[in-house]
């Protein structure tokens, strides 16, 4: 796994100028005002995840996967490394951007509209959402490749939104009432919900890994 990690870190460094641009852009947005604070951390975390996923495209380019699988690694260890690598660099992006946001807010004297707990929860939610996205995207990228996976993701988002819209239209749900009910439910069952989310995410992770392993197993090079 260490060898593959070194390879992916080396491939990540190919785009180092891009990272500086992304960071500069993010900082610029942040300087624009408080409204942009909410997207700073998820933006950086998402970009880092995409860069991690991009190493699959590098592996695939010029039939590179065929050669990689002749190295002393199995398909399973290749997958393990890929999940670990994507998790590692998106978490690093999340941690760095969170620290930067706290430093900038504190140094700039920006007013904290949220409590520390609310702020902390929002940061953790960003990371969990990013992990969920990772579990969704790795099998899609392995199955459809870099270009087609974006179309596939667009399709998934479109279908999901469509399903929710349909449920909303057909059932005639009272959105405001539901929002109040959800908020109250979260307040009453915060810990139970937190545990449920972590368990659910772990389950999604296991399913994602198994699906990815099935995709790699069927593939011929």
């Amino acid at each position, binding site marked *: 796994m260490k060898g*593959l990690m070194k390879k992916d870190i080396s491939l990540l460094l190919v785009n180092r100028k891009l990272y500086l641009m992304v960071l500069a852009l993010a900082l610029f947005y942040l300087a624009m005002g408080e409204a942009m604070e909410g997207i700073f951390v998820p933006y950086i975390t998402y970009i880092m995840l995409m860069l991690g996923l991009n190493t699959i495209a590098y592996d695939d380019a*010029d*039939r*590179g996967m065929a050669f990689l699988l*002749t190295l*002393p690694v199995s398909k399973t260890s290749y997958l393990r490394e890929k999940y670990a690598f994507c998790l590692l660099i998106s978490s690093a992006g999340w941690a760095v951007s969170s620290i930067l946001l706290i430093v900038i807010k504190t140094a700039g004297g920006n007013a904290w509209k949220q409590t520390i707990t609310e702020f902390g929860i929002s940061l953790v939610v960003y990371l969990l959402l990013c992990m969920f996205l990772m579990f969704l995207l790795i099998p899609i990228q392995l199955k459809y490749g870099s270009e087609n996976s974006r179309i596939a993701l667009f399709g998934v988002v479109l279908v999901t939104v469509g399903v929710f819209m349909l449920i909303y239209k057909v059932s005639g749900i009272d959105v405001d009432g539901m929002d109040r009910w959800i908020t109250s439910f979260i307040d009453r069952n915060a810990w139970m919900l937190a545990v449920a989310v972590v368990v659910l995410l772990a389950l999604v992770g296991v399913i994602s890994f198994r699906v990815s392993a099935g995709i790699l197993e069927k593939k*011929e090079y």
Partner: protein
Amino acid sequence: MMIELQHVKKKYGDFNLNCSLQVQEGMVTGLIGANGAGKSTTFKAILGLLKADSGVIRVFGKEPEKLTAEEKSRIGVVLSESGFSNYLKVKQIAGILESLYPRFQKGVFLEKCRRFQIPSDKLLKEFSTGMKAKLKVLIATSFEARLLILDEPTSGLDVVARDEILDLLREYMETDGRSILISSHISSDLEGLCDDLYMIDHGEIVLHEETDALLNSYGVLKVSREEWENLDKSCILRVRKESFGYSCLTGERDFYMENYPSIAMEKGSIDEVIFMMIKGEVL
């Protein structure tokens, strides 16, 4: 036995592979055939990169999918159309290999790269075809592999670069207990390197012979129509109609030289044997 294939079959549309071959310890075995004959498919089956429809494949006595990381670390591979990413540098690759192969000698590898004028600080995408080919072989021979599986390692190279690569392989074979399976469509590359040759055509092994036997015993008879009528055809492997009469491939050159001294006989070069095996007719 390093590699053993028994009736390995794989179907791709109209193409059917049906291959049996063996690679013995201490031997260099060549797989020769035209483009599209089935060389790469055979190699991919051996490496577990594709699943055979039927048949038995053994590498170090095991199915390729069941080889451990330690066992895989004793196999050096060159694939003609695949390798490390073009966005890596040699010094980065050395670091990767160091982590993957316990017997990788980084210093020796980088020194060899210098000797072969392969820059360590340039992206592979800036390399010439020759530099990339040399690097692939240098990588495969850098971690004390017991077995090299080389698919067209000299493809697209000029004579000088090809010679350098063949020298590297001869140097590799100086240590006992090592084997090479190499494919090429350039017969002269294999003539001077291989102990054993398999010829593949349309997915089928059409000839298996030791290289010495092939060069010493095979020949092509050039006979007129009259000579053809009186010829003992029991040792003729293939025949082809020509303007002057017939070209006949035999694996018993001495027999015909002794019994038909007046008949023109050409020594069997690998190219000629391939040509006759593929284009000639079976009697």
